[in-house]
C-alpha cells in the first residue's frame, strides 16, 4: 500500500492552500488545478494530468494538484485570470471520453461530476464561487470519464490514453491564452 503519495512539504511552503502540491506562485495568472483521489484508480486522472503538465508548461503557468479539495477549490482559484480544472467525470459515457466545459459561461452539469466525498463537488464549488463574485473570469473544466475507481488500482488504459490527449489540449489552450 502506498499511502504517502506526497512527500512532506518543505518549510516555508505556502500554507492554507488545501491538500495541494504546487509550484511557487508565479506572476502568471493561468492556473491549472488537477483534482481527484490518488488512491482510487481513474479518480486520480486529474492529479496525473496536472503532474504531467507541470513538466510541459512554461513558467507562466502555475500548476496545482489538489486532492479531495471540496469547497477549498474556491481559495485555490483566487486571483487567477484563467483557471483550467481537470477531474474525473462520471456521466455514463464510455471510460476515457473527454468533456470540455466552459464554466465561465454558466453552471456546468452536476450530472457529469456527481461524486464528492466532501459535501461540495466541483460543480457546486464553482457555483458558490460564482454567486460570491469570486469566480475567475475564465474557467475551463476538463472532465475525463472514469472507468475503474477501485482503491489501489492503476489508471485504466482508456483513461490513460485520454490523459495524453488532455495534456496536449491544455498545452494548446495555454498557448492560445498567451497569444
Amino acid at each position: 500500500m502506498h499511502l504517502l503519495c506526497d512527500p512532506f512539504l518543505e518549510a516555508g511552503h505556502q500554507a492554507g492552500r488545501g491538500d495541494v502540491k504546487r509550484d511557487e506562485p508565479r506572476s502568471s495568472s493561468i492556473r491549472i488545478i488537477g483534482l481527484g483521489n490518488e488512491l482510487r484508480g481513474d479518480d486520480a486522472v486529474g492529479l496525473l494530468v496536472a503532474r504531467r503538465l507541470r513538466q510541459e508548461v512554461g513558467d507562466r503557468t502555475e500548476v496545482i494538484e489538489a486532492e479531495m479539495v471540496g469547497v477549498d477549490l474556491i481559495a485555490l482559484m483566487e486571483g487567477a485570470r484563467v483557471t483550467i480544472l481537470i477531474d474525473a467525470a462520471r456521466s455514463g459515457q464510455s471510460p476515457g471520453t473527454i468533456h470540455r466545459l466552459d464554466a465561465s459561461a454558466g453552471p456546468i452539469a452536476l450530472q457529469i461530476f456527481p461524486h464528492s466525498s466532501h459535501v461540495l463537488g466541483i460543480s457546486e464549488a464553482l457555483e458558490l464561487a460564482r454567486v460570491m463574485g469570486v469566480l475567475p473570469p475564465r474557467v475551463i473544466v476538463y472532465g475525463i470519464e472514469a472507468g475503474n475507481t477501485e482503491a489501489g488500482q492503476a489508471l485504466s488504459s482508456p483513461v490513460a490514453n485520454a490523459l495524453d490527449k488532455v495534456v496536449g489540449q491544455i498545452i494548446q489552450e495555454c498557448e492560445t491564452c498567451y497569444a
Partner: protein
Amino acid sequence: MEGTERTKPEGGRETRTIAVDLVARVEGEGALRVTVKDGTVQDVELRIFEPPRFFEAFLQGRHYSEVPDIVARICGICPVAYQMSAVHALEQIFAVKVEGTLRDLRRLLYCGEWIESHALHVYLLQAPDFLGYDSGIAMAKDHAAVVTRGLRLKKAGNAIMTLLGGRSVHPVSVQVGGFSRVPLRRELEALKDELLWARDAAMETVRWVASFEFPDFTPDYTYVALRHPDEYPLNEGQIVASNGLQISVSEFEQHFTEHQVAYSNALHCTLQGAPYLVGPLARLNLNQKHLTLLTTQALADLGLALPLRNPFHGIIARAVEVLYALDESLRLIERYEPPPLPSLPVTVRAGIGMACTEAPRGILYHRYHVDGDGLIREAKIVPPTSQNQGRIEQDLRLFMPRLLSRPDNEVALECERVIRCYDPCISCATHFLKLDIKREGAM
C-alpha cells in the same frame, strides 16, 4: 428529488411512502425510513448503506508505523482525529508518553481540524436551515459577505493543518511518538495574524448563530464526552456522561456496546443499552469550566447558560468551539519552542492499547492489539457518528409528531434539519441521504 407513493392494503387503510432521493449537506450515503401508522410514528430507521469499508480488517498484519497514514484515509474531514486516537492507543502499548511541546503540537493540529470541520458545517451545511435556504449556494447569493467570512475561517484551520500536517487533508506528519517534522517558530508565528483575524471572526460567528430562531425541542439527553482535569478535552481525558458515568478509556467496551441492525451498514453503539449523544453539545455541556475566558465571556454576553439542551443549539456549540480552538491555538503558538527531537524513540512490545480522543463530531475510540514484531493483530474503531445514530433516530421519533399534519415534503425537510444538527459523517460510519416516509392507516 421527492416522490409520494400511495397504496391501499386490505381493510382500506392507506399506506403512503414518500421518498426524497437527495438530501444535501450531509457527509455520507444513507437513507431515512419512517413508518407512520394511524398518526403515530412507529419506526424510524436511519439506514446507512455506504458499503462497509473494512478498515479494521485491513489494518490487520500492517506494521504499527503505517497505522496513522492508513486510518487518516477513513475520513477527509476528520483525519487528525483518526490519527490521534491511533497514536495514543499505540503509545499506550509501547509506554511512550508524549508531553510538552510535542503534546502542544498535537493539540494545535487538532484545533486546526476542529476549525476546518466546524466552520464548514456552521456556514455551509447548517446555517441555510435557519435562514430559510435550501443550500449554501442559495444562501451565499444573499449573504456573500457572511459566507466569505466562513470560508476564510475554514482556511485558517486549513493553514494550521497544512503547516503541521504537511497538507490540509490526510496529514502525513503524525507518527507514533510525535511527528516526522516539527515547525520552526517563525513558521508558527507567520500564522498569528490570520488566526487573530479568525478569532474575531469566530466571535462574530457565535453572535450570528445565537441570533437564529430555534425550534422548541429539548429531549432528555445522556451526554458523553471526555473530561480532562486541566483543559478542554481534545486528546486525553476520562470518559464522563451526564448520568454520572466516569470511567477510564480502557473501560469503554465494558459500558459501551456496538450492535448490528439489519437496515444499516454502520454498527449502532449504546451506553448501558440506551442511545446517547456525543459531539460539540455534549463536550461543551460537560466541560464548561475549561473554556477560555474569552469563550466564557462570549457565552455570557449573549445570555447563553450551559447546559444547552436543544440539539439545534449544536450550531452554537460548534461556533463556540471554533472560538475556543482559535484562542487555544494562539496560546499554544505563543509559548512554542521547538522540541529537541520531532519524535520520541519507540521500543516495540506486544500488548493491547486503547485511546479515545475528541473528533469534531464526538469521541472516537480505538483499540489495537500489537504483536512483538509491531504488527497489528486486531483493531477496533468506534466513530462518533455510529455512536450518535441511535440518538438521531430517537430525536426524530420525538420531533416528528408535531410535523405529521404537514405535507410529506415539509416533514422530510424538517427531518433532514434534525439530522443535520448532528453533522453526521456517514463516510466515517456512511453520501447523500434518501428519506422514505411510510404512512399507514388514518392520520
